[in-house]
């Protein structure tokens, strides 16, 4: 599945010096990639319908494989298709990939969320993305002031880690969603998957990042 990394202005414009660290432990897994020559029988199918929804991937110039990325809907070979049955198959294929991903995340015990602070808390900050730095700083300040707060970082928004988020939110008195947007899209996801509202939202949409002091003041306001 192709992956697009979206980042935010705060992260992009941040500069930080860190100690050099070993990167060889990080492995780039390219998945079901055909290397060398395509060995299959018949023409290679970029969008082959499979059990998992994932098709073996070949890069252009792979011997024996013709690759086509084409149109809004296509058949297994990547030719434009307006066949309604094929459209249904391809939509189901894409759905299967997400289910497969969710299963794999579970099986491989990949962190889809990360909890900072105690398991049980008076207030739980729920957030995603570049807000992590100021939130972790704010937790320290809140602890100093005697507030038992924790922070649930959502690493995977889709597929949404339903069980994990449910468990953490059941252990808190107040779920506070912190986001850099006007509509609190994370609250919408929580409502969609957990059938509950966030207790409070702290939203900032003035083009400036959160500061730890700002977050501490806002959290105290709602406690």
């Amino acid at each position, binding site marked *: 599945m192709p992956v697009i990394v979206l980042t935010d202005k705060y992260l992009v414009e941040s500069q930080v010096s860190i100690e050099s660290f070993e990167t060889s432990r990080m492995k780039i897994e390219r998945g079901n990639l055909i290397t060398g020559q395509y060995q299959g029988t018949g023409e290679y199918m970029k969008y082959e319908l499979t059990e998992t929804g994932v098709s073996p991937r070949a890069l252009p110039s792979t011997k024996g494989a013709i690759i086509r990325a084409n149109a809004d809907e296509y058949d297994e070979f990547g*030719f434009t298709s307006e066949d309604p049955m094929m459209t249904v198959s391809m939509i189901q294929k894409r759905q299967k990939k997400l289910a497969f991903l969710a299963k794999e995340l579970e099986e491989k015990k990949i962190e889809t969320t990360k909890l900072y602070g105690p398991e049980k808390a008076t207030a739980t900050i729920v957030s995603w993305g570049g807000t992590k730095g100021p939130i972790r700083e704010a937790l320290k300040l809140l602890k100093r002031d005697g507030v038992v707060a924790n922070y649930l970082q959502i690493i995977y928004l889709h597929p949404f880690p339903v069980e994990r988020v449910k468990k953490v939110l059941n252990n808190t008195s107040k779920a506070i969603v912190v986001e850099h947007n006007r509509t609190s899209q994370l609250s919408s996801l929580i409502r969609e998957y957990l059938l509950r509202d966030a207790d409070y939202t702290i939203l900032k949409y003035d083009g400036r990042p959160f500061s730890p002091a700002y977050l501490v003041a806002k959290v105290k306001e709602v406690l």
Partner: protein
Amino acid sequence: MVTLKDLATPIKSNWCPGCGNYGILTAVKGALVELGLEREQVALVSGIGCHGKMVNYVNVNGFHGIHGRVLPIATGIKLANPELMVIGFAGDADQYDEGWDHFCHAMRRNIDMTLIVHDNQTLGLTTGQTTATSLQGFKSKSTPFGSVTPPLNPIAHALVSNGTFVARGFAGDPRHLQSLIVEAVRHRGFGYIDVFQPCVTFNYLNTYQWFRERVYKLDEQGHDYTDRQKALEKSFEWGERIPIGIFYKEERLTYLDTLPHIKGKSLAKLPVENVNVVTIIETMK
């Protein structure tokens, strides 16, 4: 080496009978056979318009992009994998309206690829509107009283943008067009061909007959394609007689030639599984 039979696909064409695209398709297939390439070596990129279906009708690698963005995609493919022979197909509205900025910059960058513009002087897929190459006075759905603006001159623009291979073909003469495509592909640099491609359904003005009465071949008139000034003069010839063939050709360093650190390497094929950044950082200490 590929044969015409290898290049056929099972997809039924949805172009109108008599469409100029058939002439271009015939010429492209003929050129791929003449060039003696393998199917896996070729990457076709098409944009939005009737021409965009090209990737369905030639059985080689094919990538269908968004409106006006044939050149960014094609450039990316070539830079990531110089082993691929890249041919971009665009329409006149696609390249000269939507993708105009990419066009001029691709000329001066001199990426080693080929661009074929299916120039039918109208928006065929959207049922006939005026484009950047529609003639002044052209009546269409978007200009019912006639287009008030003169067309732009893509050949002249290519020349002043430092293009290294600038040519024009005619879909009504696929044999001549095939020879131009072969030359453009063999050219080490950016090979550009504007192709008169009559739209038999929506362009009532610039028909096969209209072009047949006007086009003449530059090489038959002793045109010297090494002279940019002469080529520029020829590019303004329009009306009773319209030149086709190679206007200008020169050898110049390609974009990849100027990047020695990646020259001769196929980035797409470099291993990424075991990258250790530390070794690079060590060299900077």
